[in-house]
């Protein structure tokens, strides 16, 4: 209990204090790092405990379950919490090394972390929405952390589109409450089966649209490239490495855990949309030249893989979804951080991330693709399996092409190198992250174990 409170609370309190200070000063950045580190360590300790002893939960204020607001750390939530917290920590460290240029940056990052950890560790749907808004509000301001006025336009689009998503989501939560009479996720999952498919399918569609917007899936992707292109490397890493996790987590939690029947009902649609995402994202990415733009379109494609895994469902499908979300988040963090740097070793780190996105062993991306293949093979229909395997292969081949086009044009081309290389510490950070990607690929057991447990949890339902 103290660990859950600490993981959420420490960055909240520090964020509030640091909001009043000038974030450009070094000590503010270091304080923020300390708070983020505490949050991360509590998350990891909590994760260890959850893996060993099962779900940790309590109700705020000591109220009985169903009356009070439950905080619940299960395998799925804690996995995403640790992942997002880690990504935010690394991005903040990166920004501190390079020098923060905005007075609000550290406080915003801490608020964002509070929202993210809160989302993943709450057991209450309305609280989910509240933390979701905390994280998104911080993200709106963070996307405006950029140099040129015209780039603020992208931040504005981001805010409007995501506010729309939030409204749709809160309507869905209200509808779910109307149908089940509870806001507790576990209770809602039990009761929603009695309501029948007819009213709940509409709710499921609304939830899908809300998280699809967040994740940047194919029909809802239009805001994504513009926002990423104008952002700082660290902000882009936070957006695609941490914030996009809300989308995958939300689809897993609400689709797989609370509304499994509706998910099965809508699976063909999700498979089609996921495939469209993969093909569209990859084709757009191949056609682009600037690294950030390529990776932004690639993010749309990668979101498609996660959607397909979730649509396949069952323990294997959900486990693949979790694994792919984790791997994708790590890949994207490394890629975006690397694009912001110059100097030797950065190219190598970028190449590893590119390998990983394309799914080449030994990088960890291979695991994600492998899990997807396994999930596709578990489908009942032969035609479906063949189509999916072909699609995953095609997507992988295309991502191989665009990754190496970029690598070639940015790092191999002998260019009249103007600027001086980035600070060594920042480059080392990127290299450490790259080593982590390869390390997890070489020793995949922990990741596989966690994702299998999480997948079983989602599939098993309450």
């Amino acid at each position: 209990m103290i660990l859950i409170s600490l993981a959420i609370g420490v960055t909240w309190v520090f964020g509030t204090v640091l909001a009043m200070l000038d974030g450009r000063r070094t000590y503010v950045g270091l304080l923020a790092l300390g708070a983020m580190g505490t949050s991360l360590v509590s998350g990891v300790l909590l994760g260890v405990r959850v893996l060993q002893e099962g779900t940790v939960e309590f109700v705020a204020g000591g109220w009985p379950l169903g009356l009070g607001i439950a905080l619940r750390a299960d395998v799925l939530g804690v996995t995403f919490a640790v992942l997002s917290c880690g990504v935010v920590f690394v991005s903040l460290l990166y920004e501190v090394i390079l020098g923060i240029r905005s007075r609000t940056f550290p406080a915003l990052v801490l608020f964002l972390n509070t929202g993210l950890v809160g989302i993943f560790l709450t057991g209450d749907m309305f609280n989910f929405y509240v933390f979701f808004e905390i994280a998104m509000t911080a993200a709106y301001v963070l996307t405006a952390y950029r140099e040129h006025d015209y780039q603020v336009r992208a931040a504005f689009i981001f805010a409007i589109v995501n506010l729309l998503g939030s409204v749709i989501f809160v309507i869905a939560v209200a509808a779910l409450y109307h149908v089940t009479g509870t806001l507790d996720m576990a209770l809602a999952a039990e009761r929603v089966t009695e309501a029948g498919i007819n009213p709940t399918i509409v709710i499921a569609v609304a939830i899908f649209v809300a998280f699809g917007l967040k994740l940047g899936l194919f029909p809802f992707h239009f805001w994504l490239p513009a926002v990423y292109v104008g952002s700082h490397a660290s902000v882009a890493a936070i957006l695609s490495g941490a914030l996009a996790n809300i989308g995958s987590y939300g689809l897993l939690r609400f689709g797989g855990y609370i509304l499994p029947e509706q998910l099965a009902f809508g699976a063909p649609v999700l498979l089609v949309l996921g495939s469209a995402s993969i093909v569209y994202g990859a084709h757009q990415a191949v056609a682009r030249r600037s690294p950030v733009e390529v990776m932004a379109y690639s993010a749309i494609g990668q979101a498609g893989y996660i959607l397909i895994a979730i649509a396949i469902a069952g323990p294997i499908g959900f486990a693949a979804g979790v694994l792919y979300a984790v791997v994708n988040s790590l890949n994207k963090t490394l890629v975006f951080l690397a694009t912001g740097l110059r100097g030797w070793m950065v190219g190598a780190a970028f190449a590893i991330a590119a390998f990983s996105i394309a799914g080449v062993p030994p990088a960890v991306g291979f695991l994600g693709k492998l899990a997807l293949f396994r999930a596709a093979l578990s489908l009942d229909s032969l035609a479906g399996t063949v189509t999916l395997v072909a699609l995953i292969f095609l997507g992988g081949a295309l991502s191989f092409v665009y990754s190496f086009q970029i690598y070639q044009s940015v790092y191999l081309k002998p260019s009249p190198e103007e600027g001086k290389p980035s600070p060594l510490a920042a480059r080392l950070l990127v290299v450490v992250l790259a080593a982590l990607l390869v390390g997890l690929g070489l020793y995949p057991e922990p990741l596989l174990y966690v994702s299998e447990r999480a997948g079983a949890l989602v599939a098993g339902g309450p």
Partner: protein
Amino acid sequence: MRPPAGDGKPLGPENGLTTDVPGGVPEGQTSVMTRAVSRLLLMPTIATAAAILVKGYVEPGDGFSAGVVAALGILMQYLAFGREQAERMLPLRGLGYMAFFGLLLTLVVAFRGPVVGQTLMTQWPLPGDAVIHVGTLEVITAVAFDVGIFLLVLGYGTGVISLIARVVGRAERRSKEENHRDPDEAYGEDMG
């Protein structure tokens, strides 16, 4: 819904009812009636807010709605007098910081529980324990929590509007005067 124009009578600067203040509301935008009424309504609004805050434990109301009411009362002054004059009449500078102090207070109360080994947001004193009274007011952490929410809402509401008014006012001044003012001068200490 613009209020009718003033009748042009000279107004006494001693009662804060002048219009020819630099950065104030241009003459004719708000009438003396509007200004006088909004000035008169300020204290009742604040008193109502305090009542909502305190009564929230037996009747509908809480820190949030109290904060909204109080913020509306202050925003009315901004509307009637313009930012600069309103801030000269009332101690409004730095009110935006109240949002942070309020949030801190709320968080401290909420996270007191886990620190002393109870669950999150546990009230002190516990139900059934003796309560310390100040007059007829019971001192419980729930009140502190709500005061924090009150400050948060009040500070946020007034702080954000004041900030927007400042930015808009600066843009207006710049376009009007085109003088040697440094455009970035006031960035950086805009909070509150």
